[in-house]
């Protein structure tokens, strides 16, 4: 039995679902990459989350970011995460000058909620301070048109690369994906049953920093670390939700666990300066934008996303909206995005917030709140 077959068999063993009656599709995972001795997820600090908050990080309107405050928030967060006294030493725990580093940003919530320029620029600044050349830093996501809308270039040093796998989400441009590394599954009888990882991840990057936002999501309940790194690094993922049903419960974690993505994603910086409590992952309107004014640091994507579930759900409760856990058919208006955008008590798909717990069962992190250590810092 060769290694490829071995990996495939391991991953097609059915796992216990976290939702009663939910069936887990049969997944065939093809990857020739071996896990690192300490895979990046959950990484060096399983179950540990540093929450750095500051009421001063945004102006009163929420439009303008206070760059100095964010800089301080990042320094405090990284020092606390690693226990290092100096910020640069904290970053050296993860990176050295030989690394080629990908920064996975989120632009889906344009124009209101995207990975902030200040946090992305701060990340780049620290990588350069460690000795990583700008040309070895890649700000990336799947779709070029979304990167173009957010336009990070003016905020970053010359030489930093900003790259995408496809021009847009049209399913016609596959050259940016690795044909030899993929997850195969027949979810709804679709013909194209493969989701391939970006070539950038397999062929160039040695490390990845994940910078998601705090957002609600119509299919997964929330979109945080797991969804951003998984659906943001693989092709052909929109096929997981159709006509009110979603396979995101198991697919998100399954993708995130694929090597080399799992091993190379070594740092999670959740941008919670702003958030979206309904209608996500988009932010077409400001109506559902809110301002958590915090940044979460960690290496464990499950632990951070577990906190995110409560942050989004608490906000929804405060706004009188149904829970992200609500599966009732009476709130379901399949594929009616217009209604969903008008009414926070409309779901267009049955959400699968259990994807976070599912990912924990794949070894990606700690889901049990009693085992998650949260250190809060006020700046």
């Amino acid at each position: 039995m060769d290694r490829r077959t071995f990996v495939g068999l391991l991953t097609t063993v059915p796992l216990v679902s976290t939702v009663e009656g939910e069936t887990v599709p049969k997944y065939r995972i093809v990857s020739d990459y071996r896990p690192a001795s300490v895979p990046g997820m959950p990484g060096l600090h399983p179950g540990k989350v540093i929450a750095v908050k500051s009421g001063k990080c945004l102006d009163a309107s929420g439009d303008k970011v206070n760059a100095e405050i964010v800089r301080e928030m990042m320094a405090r967060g990284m020092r606390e995460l690693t226990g290092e006294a100096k910020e640069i030493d904290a970053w050296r725990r993860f990176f050295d000058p030989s690394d080629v580093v990908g920064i996975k940003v989120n632009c889906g919530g344009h124009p209101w909620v995207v990975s902030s320029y200040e946090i992305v620029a701060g990340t780049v600044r620290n990588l350069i301070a460690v000795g990583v050349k700008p040309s070895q830093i890649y700000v990336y996501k799947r779709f070029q048109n979304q990167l173009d809308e957010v336009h990070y270039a003016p905020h970053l040093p010359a030489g930093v690369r900003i790259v995408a796998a496809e021009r847009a989400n049209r399913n016609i441009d596959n050259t940016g994906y690795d044909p030899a590394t993929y997850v195969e599954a027949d979810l709804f009888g679709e013909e194209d049953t493969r989701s391939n990882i970006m070539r950038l991840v397999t062929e160039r990057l040695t490390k990845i920093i994940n910078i998601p936002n705090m957002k609600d999501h119509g299919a997964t309940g929330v979109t945080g670390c797991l969804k951003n790194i998984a659906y943001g690094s693989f092709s052909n993922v929109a096929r997981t939700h159709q006509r009110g049903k979603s396979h995101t419960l198991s697919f998100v974690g399954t993708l995130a666990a694929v090597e080399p993505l799992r091993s190379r994603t070594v740092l999670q910086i959740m941008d919670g300066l702003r958030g979206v409590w309904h209608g996500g992952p988009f932010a077409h309107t400001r109506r559902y934008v809110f301002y958590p004014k915090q940044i979460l640091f960690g290496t464990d994507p499950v632990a951070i996303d577990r906190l995110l579930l409560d942050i989004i759900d608490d906000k929804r409760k405060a706004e009188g909206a149904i829970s992200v856990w609500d599966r009732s058919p009476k709130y379901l208006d399949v594929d009616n995005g217009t209604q969903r955008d008008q009414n926070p008590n409309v779901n267009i798909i049955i959400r699968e917030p259990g994807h976070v717990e599912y990912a924990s069962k794949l070894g990606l992190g700690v889901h049990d709140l009693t085992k998650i250590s949260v250190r809060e810092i006020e700046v």
Partner: protein
Amino acid sequence: MNSLLFLLALPLLYWQGGVESAPALREAGVERLCVPPDMAESWRKAGFSVVPMSQVEFASREKLLTPGIAARADVASPTRSPWVNANGWRILRDSSRDGIDKYHYDLPAGKALLAAAEAFAYGADVILKIDPSDLEEFGRMLSFLRQLPRDDLPTLADLAVVDDGSTLAGEVMNLLARRNLLFRVSPTPLSQFRFNIKLGTEEYPKKEAKDPSLFALKIRRLLTDEQRRLRIYGSEVVICRLTGDDSRVRMHLLNYGGREIAGLRIRLRGAFAKGEVFVDGSGRMQLTDYALTDGATEFSLPKMETYAVIDLPKR
């Protein structure tokens, strides 16, 4: 196939324009065409190979659908898996029985390229009436078809459809073709196939076939994806006709989506060496990311617009 037969196999243009349009046709590379009988002589004198054909004769040929994708929200997802109007299944079906073997397209602007490719890929006797604005593109496709190596290989299939001549059976064939489930049409079961799909039997009841998409999915799952001769990844709008014999295969890939596709991934069961690739609009091309794995050959086609032909010798 000899040169004359090959020339005759090329899609033929039905042209009602006057002989003053000869320079435009020449420029497009059109040398042979159908014209109304009263214009035949003047076109001959202008140096063209002419087949006289009245409008009635043209219309008496079986009309084919305008190929491409169509908005049918009731039966298809407009973004992920749109409804495809394709004629290949019908041509294959007709070729298995006596009767219809001559067709025509009456095409709106923008469709000549795909229609010409489709007609050629399935070896149909087709005459195309095109929008004059498509003349250049039509000529480009003719030029591409002329440079292809001659070939007349039989259709390869994973299963047989036992044709009862019904509309229902036709819709099943349509959806099987749409999913690249390769089939051969026969009036009787064919022993070389593990699956002979005969509607009205216990295994394949007609009431199931009334949802032909779901029925095609049932067939796919019976066959299993692992056992299919052909899989296509990276697009839901490319349909393949696969032909071959003991020594080689030819893939005719037709893109019904109307937009260039980059990096189409193909899995072909069996071991094949790197062969020749011809892509309309790009010429010869090399396959990339070639791999032999799990009893199949996989490779990527760097790009395709409307039509690509891949010839692979068996290893």
